């Protein structure tokens, strides 16, 4: 058993460094349904199988077609049997169900993963047993006709199962995420500001700073005092001269920096510490202090995203059904309004800085201990909350609460509108569409074209321009679809003829390059949904392979 664990740790090492063991665990406990083993579908699934998704179920009612086998632009070929047998078994392969063929070959990529297939069209499943879809952590629908994805969307919305729609259409990639409410504790922001509390130091920090006497330190100590303490000391001086007001604008911050520079010089002169050229050397830690003045003196406050979470209805009204995210959020909110004095629990981390080991560790521990104290208070609030709704205190773990507190400034909630809302004439996002279309080459036009080809499919049971002889005559037919779409939604926008010609020429092709791009993009969004780490897009993504541009719209 340990051997298996070690070998999994080795295999997944590079990704464990991104989402941790707990993220991996979430991935391995997930069951994803993918509908349609096309090039796009198999690419998405490949990028979920490789990192170790627990189980996948491939739903596809199609047989492997000559197109799939003979057209090397389809991903499934990469998984086809070795050359010799492939040639001989051409016929056999063609008779094989696409879902089964794909499942077998995808499983080969990772023996940790279990794969199932269902040789049935999604429409049939929706007709006979829609609850089939309730068991999944996520359903990914690929290359689906509009009627199917609308039906599926409605079933999954009711069941609370996240739904990701993906399509490759010629040189265009499209994704639509539908999830009622997706909470994220670990959003892992790229450029997070530190939580140093220099503007309003907590008691333990104040005491710690006081215990340092900068003016009377030996040079060695002086130049190895953490810049946080240096800034704190000078801030005290500044407060006494500026009515306890933080330096606010550039001028004041510059004056504050000057204060530190001068303080450094005075200290040097007192100790006659100059380098051989006679000019005072700036100590590195003082240089660090000066460099960090800009960000270190930002007033500590609750970020607006977190504030919104505190004010959300789900946070306010806790019941025994409330997910732990809202329970803990409520607990943190209680803390903020009481013991926290309007501030979140202390995060507890500090950046590395020039300092001797002892001073740094001691300072780090001041923050760490405070973070632990604050988290313990939050725990008490959460406990009381659990009791009030009749749930046992073990319902949330210490670890969960600590993780939540550490990430309190980075919490995110993603709420996607339903397909019904996007499609209804009463609730569709007219403003977004109209304003984007002021620029006639915005990716929004690609969205309108996809809606139009869906309309075409509804009317003609096929997509435009699939065969060469159809291209010319379909242009006019497609144009009619575009116009009827714009009319139905009273959209006063201009869709250039170029795009209509374009989409006819695409012939609903699924070029491998676009399928591969989408395969990577969609798989990562799926992983975000499953692990609740990093932030998913909201809610429509369009990729243009020719211009290598993309856009995200909230429709």
């Amino acid at each position, binding site marked *: 058993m340990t051997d298996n664990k070690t070998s999994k740790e*080795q*295999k*997944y*090492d*590079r*990704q464990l*460094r*991104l989402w941790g063991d707990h993220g991996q665990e979430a991935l391995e406990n997930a069951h994803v349904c993918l509908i349609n083993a096309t090039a796009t579908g198999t*690419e998405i699934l*490949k990028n979920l199988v*490789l*990192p170790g998704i627990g189980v996948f179920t491939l739903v596809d009612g199609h047989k492997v077609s000559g*197109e799939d086998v003979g057209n090397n*632009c389809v991903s499934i*070929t*990469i*998984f086809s049997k*070795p*050359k010799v047998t*492939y040639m001989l078994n051409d016929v056999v392969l063609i008779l094989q169900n696409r879902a089964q063929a794909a499942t077998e070959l995808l499983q*080969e990529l990772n023996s940790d993963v279990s794969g199932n297939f269902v040789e049935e069209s999604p429409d049939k499943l929706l007709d006979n047993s829609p609850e089939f879809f309730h068991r999944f952590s996520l359903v990914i629908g690929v290359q689906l006709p509009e009627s199917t994805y609308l039906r599926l969307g409605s079933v999954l919305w009711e069941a609370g199962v996240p739904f990701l729609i993906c399509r490759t259409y*010629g040189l265009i990639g499209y994704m639509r995420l539908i999830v009622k409410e997706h909470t994220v504790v670990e959003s*892992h*922001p*790229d450029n997070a500001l530190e939580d140093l509390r220099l503007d309003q130091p907590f008691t333990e920090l104040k005491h710690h700073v006081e215990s340092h006497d900068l003016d009377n330190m030996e040079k060695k100590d002086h130049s190895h005092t953490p810049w946080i303490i240096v800034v704190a000391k000078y801030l005290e001086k500044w407060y006494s001269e500026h009515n306890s007001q933080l330096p606010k604008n550039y001028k004041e911050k510059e004056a504050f920096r000057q204060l530190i520079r001068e303080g450094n010089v005075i200290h040097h002169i007192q100790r006659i510490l100059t380098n051989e050229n006679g000019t005072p050397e700036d100590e590195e830690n003082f240089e660090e202090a000066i460099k960090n003045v800009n960000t270190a003196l930002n007033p500590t406050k609750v970020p607006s995203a977190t504030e919104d979470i505190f004010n959300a209805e789900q946070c306010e009204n806790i019941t025994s059904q409330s997910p732990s995210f809202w329970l803990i959020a409520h607990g943190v909110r209680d803390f903020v309004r009481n013991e926290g004095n309007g501030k979140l629990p202390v995060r507890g981390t500090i950046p*590395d800085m020039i*300092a001797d*080991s002892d001073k*740094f*560790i001691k300072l780090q521990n001041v923050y760490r201990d405070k973070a632990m104290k604050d988290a313990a208070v939050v725990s008490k609030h959460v406990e009381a909350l659990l009791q009030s709704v009749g749930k046992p205190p073990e319902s949330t773990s210490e670890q969960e609460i600590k993780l939540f507190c550490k990430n309190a400034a980075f919490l995110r909630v993603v709420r996607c509108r339903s397909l019904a809302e996007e499609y209804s004439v009463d609730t569709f996002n007219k403003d977004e569409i109209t304003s984007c279309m002021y620029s006639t080459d915005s990716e929004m036009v690609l969205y309108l074209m996809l809606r139009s080809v869906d309309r075409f499919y509804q009317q003609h049971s096929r997509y435009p321009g*699939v065969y*060469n*002889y159809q291209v010319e005559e379909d242009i006019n037919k497609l144009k009619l679809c575009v116009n009827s779409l714009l009319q139905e939604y009273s959209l006063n926008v201009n869709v250039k003829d*170029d795009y209509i010609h*374009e989409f006819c*020429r*695409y*012939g609903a*092709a*699924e*070029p*491998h*390059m676009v399928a*591969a*791009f989408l*395969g*990577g*993009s969609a*798989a*990562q*969004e799926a992983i975000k949904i499953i692990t609740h780490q*990093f*932030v998913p*897009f*909201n809610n429509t*993504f369009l990729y243009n392979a*020719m211009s*290598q*541009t993309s856009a*995200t719209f909230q429709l």
Partner: protein
Amino acid sequence: VADSEVPDCHSKVRITSSPRFTKRSSIKCICCSSLQFLLDTCKILVIGAGGLGCELLKDLALSGFRHIHVVDMDTIDVSNLNRQFLFRPKDVGRPKAEVAADFVNGRVPGCNVVPHFKKIQDLDETFYRQFHIVVCGLDSVVARRWMNGMLLSLLIYEDGVLDPSSIIPLIDGGTEGFKGNARVILPGMTACIDCTLELYPPQINFPMCTIASMPRLPEHCVEYVRMLLWPKEKPFGDGVALDGDDPTHIQWVFQKSLERAAEFSITGVTYRLTQGVVKRIIPAVASTNAVIAAACATEVFKIATSAYVPLNNYLVFNDVDGLYMYTFEAERKENCSACSQVPQDLQFPPSAKLQEILDYLTENASLQMKSPAITTTLDGKNKTLYLQTVASIEERTRPNLNKTLKELGLVHGQELAVADVTTPQTVLFKLNFIS
């Protein structure tokens, strides 16, 4: 070619060619000749058969390319298997290029991938000259710069005018966690790797005094063991270097790092962290590699069919928060040390020591050389001023570092030729004395 004459099998490859999207005339479809070129003649070189390389080979093979070469000097490791999908557990230890080529050749009929289990530096201009396009999936800036330099060295100028047929486009992709980039380089025409060297900031190493006497982070403890303790204690024998791929070596470093950390009350040293620091591990997932490789392969396709406007010229991708893509045009540097053909300017007083020039070559953000070798012509003879990579020559020329430029006999306007691992050709510098 009239529409009705285009065979059906091409219908799925028929992609737009309206005037808006093409540089050339509005042909109705990628006519047979373009597709035939792709299938029969076009030769693509893929550098690297790792995370990006595997994806690239698949993308190119499934898009119709038939003649592909792949170069990779590495063998397969277990930690590759989470994304380098052409490899299986049974392949661990085998050369990546060979296994990758076998896989693709066995699964895509008609495709011929030729592997080269070599360093890129082991191949010469005759090799590189045969390709129409080079696409890189490398994990090292040094290797990128070398490749960049090699393609630049193949450019032919006649009377100062660049012969376009000597240009081999370079598509370069890179990934790190959830971030990635793809760029198109037309050597001699658009910004090259060295033009934008500042985009690859030098790797930050911890200061020695921190490692030796003032550790604060678990990483400092590991670096202490790696850099100071290992050479001192030689735990696996004399002259045995620390091998990041040997679990017994890492285990030793881990234990010693724990001890070091305990001495300073530092928490957080784990086996994973230890290995990460020793091997300078960059986190990686399948998804980012899939996206960037697809973007690169799309550019290869555009350039090969020459019916589309290629990316102009640098794409950035990040899917930490939603999906973000941004394209900008990286500009050529007028005095780029690689592609400008202008001798680089060195401004130093005659009293400066040679060491100062050496420091400048390694520390300057636009040069970032690794171990430059400096030669010049004195009294009509070629003289090596300093060379690091051969121990005997290093010893002989080391005293020069402490001599002033004047003492070495260098004059204003002196041309110095500098060789370095970052470039296949020497870089010419002109010494300008300042007071």
